[in-house]
Every structure is written in structure tokens, then in C-alpha cells.
């Protein structure tokens, strides 16, 4: 069956993040053709309290003063890389992670986002050479479905 691998794999099975993750990496690494498409259904279950590994959370932004908020809005529009040092010293946000949902399928999809960024993920600095490129050509995230295209190497 599929001696050169599958062209398309669709996962509409458990919608449990860890199970979907295990299936994804096994099938992606061993049974998807280079350039093939892997489709993951119903990524939004991770946002639901009544799903086994889902959880609803508030994504409201950390409180900032009204003045800071206005300043950030303005700077966000005009700031470029040249202003990084000034901005970092003013707001101390350069090492602060975003408040981010990571449960169930949602957390797994964010792992895929990290893999898509493997070239930057595998170097600690801009001037270092990436240790490897992403195994993905692209990841398309829609409201319900995620499409992962395998890279052709």
C-alpha cells in the first residue's frame, strides 16, 4: 500500500493533542511523500472545557497603564529594529512571553508553528547558521483545520 508514501493524510480521529501529535510525527516521518499534504481536523477542541484535554482561558492582555498603552500603540506603528534597545529599556518586554493558550490540540498546533520556524529555532543568534531547516514547506492554519505541506529536500 502506498509504496512511495501517501500524497494526502487526513487526521479526523481523536482530536486529543498528545494522540494527534504521536500520530502526526509517525505518519509524517514515515508515510507522507515529500511535498505531501497532512491535514489536521478540528484544532479548536483544545479551547473547550468539556473536551478531555481542552481548557478555556482568557487571553486578555496584561494590564498596562493608559499612558503606556497609548505610547506602545504609537511606537508599535513607527518602531523598527533600530529602536529595539530604547524600547527594551523602556518597557522590559523583550524577554517577556506572550500570554498564550497551549492546551490540547491548540498546544500541538503551536508545536507545528515552532517546527515551521526551525531555521531560527536552531540558532540562538541572528548571525549563527541554522542547524537545520524546517521539515515543513508551509503550515496553513484555518479556523478549524490545519494544513501542513512536507518540504521537498
Amino acid at each position, binding site marked *: *500500500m*502506498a509504496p512511495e508514501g*501517501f500524497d494526502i493524510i*487526513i*487526521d*479526523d*480521529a481523536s482530536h486529543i493533542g498528545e494522540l494527534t501529535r504521536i500520530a502526526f510525527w509517525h505518519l509524517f516521518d514515515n508515510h507522507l*511523500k515529500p511535498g505531501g499534504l497532512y491535514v489536521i481536523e478540528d484544532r479548536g477542541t483544545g479551547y473547550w472545557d468539556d473536551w478531555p484535554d481542552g481548557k478555556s482561558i482568557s487571553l486578555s492582555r496584561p494590564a498596562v497603564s493608559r499612558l503606556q498603552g497609548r505610547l506602545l500603540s504609537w511606537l508599535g506603528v513607527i518602531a523598527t529594529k533600530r529602536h529595539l534597545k530604547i524600547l527594551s529599556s523602556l518597557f522590559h518586554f523583550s524577554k517577556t512571553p506572550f500570554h498564550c493558550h497551549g492546551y490540547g490540540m491548540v498546544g500541538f498546533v503551536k508545536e507545528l508553528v515552532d517546527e515551521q520556524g526551525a531555521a531560527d529555532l536552531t540558532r540562538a543568534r541572528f548571525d549563527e547558521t541554522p542547524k537545520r531547516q524546517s521539515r515543513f514547506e508551509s503550515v496553513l492554519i484555518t479556523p478549524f483545520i490545519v494544513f501542513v505541506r512536507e518540504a521537498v529536500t
Partner: protein
Amino acid sequence: MMSGWLLVRNDAENGRLGRAIEEALLSGGPDGKLSASTGIESFSHLDFHVACDIGT
């Protein structure tokens, strides 16, 4: 003429997507040109799967 291999992982009890694809393949699809040249295999012990070589 296009063809390719498709694998669908689907829930065994509520495998609507897999069943819909299987029915489409068996009926030839909307324009009657769809076919599964190798037949459709299911693996119910692993949840409902469809694996087949599709041609149009």
C-alpha cells in the same frame, strides 16, 4: 488524469469523514470520474481508516 494515495484517520464510531470519502469513491464522486483503483482498506482496530489510491 490525476492520481494519488490518500490515508484518512477517523473515529471508529463516528467516522463521518472517512465514510463520506468512501461513499464518494464508491459512487464515482460528483462527476462520476473518481475512483479508487486499489480498493479501500479499513483498519477498524486502529479507529476507522481509509487508505486508497485515488484517480480522477
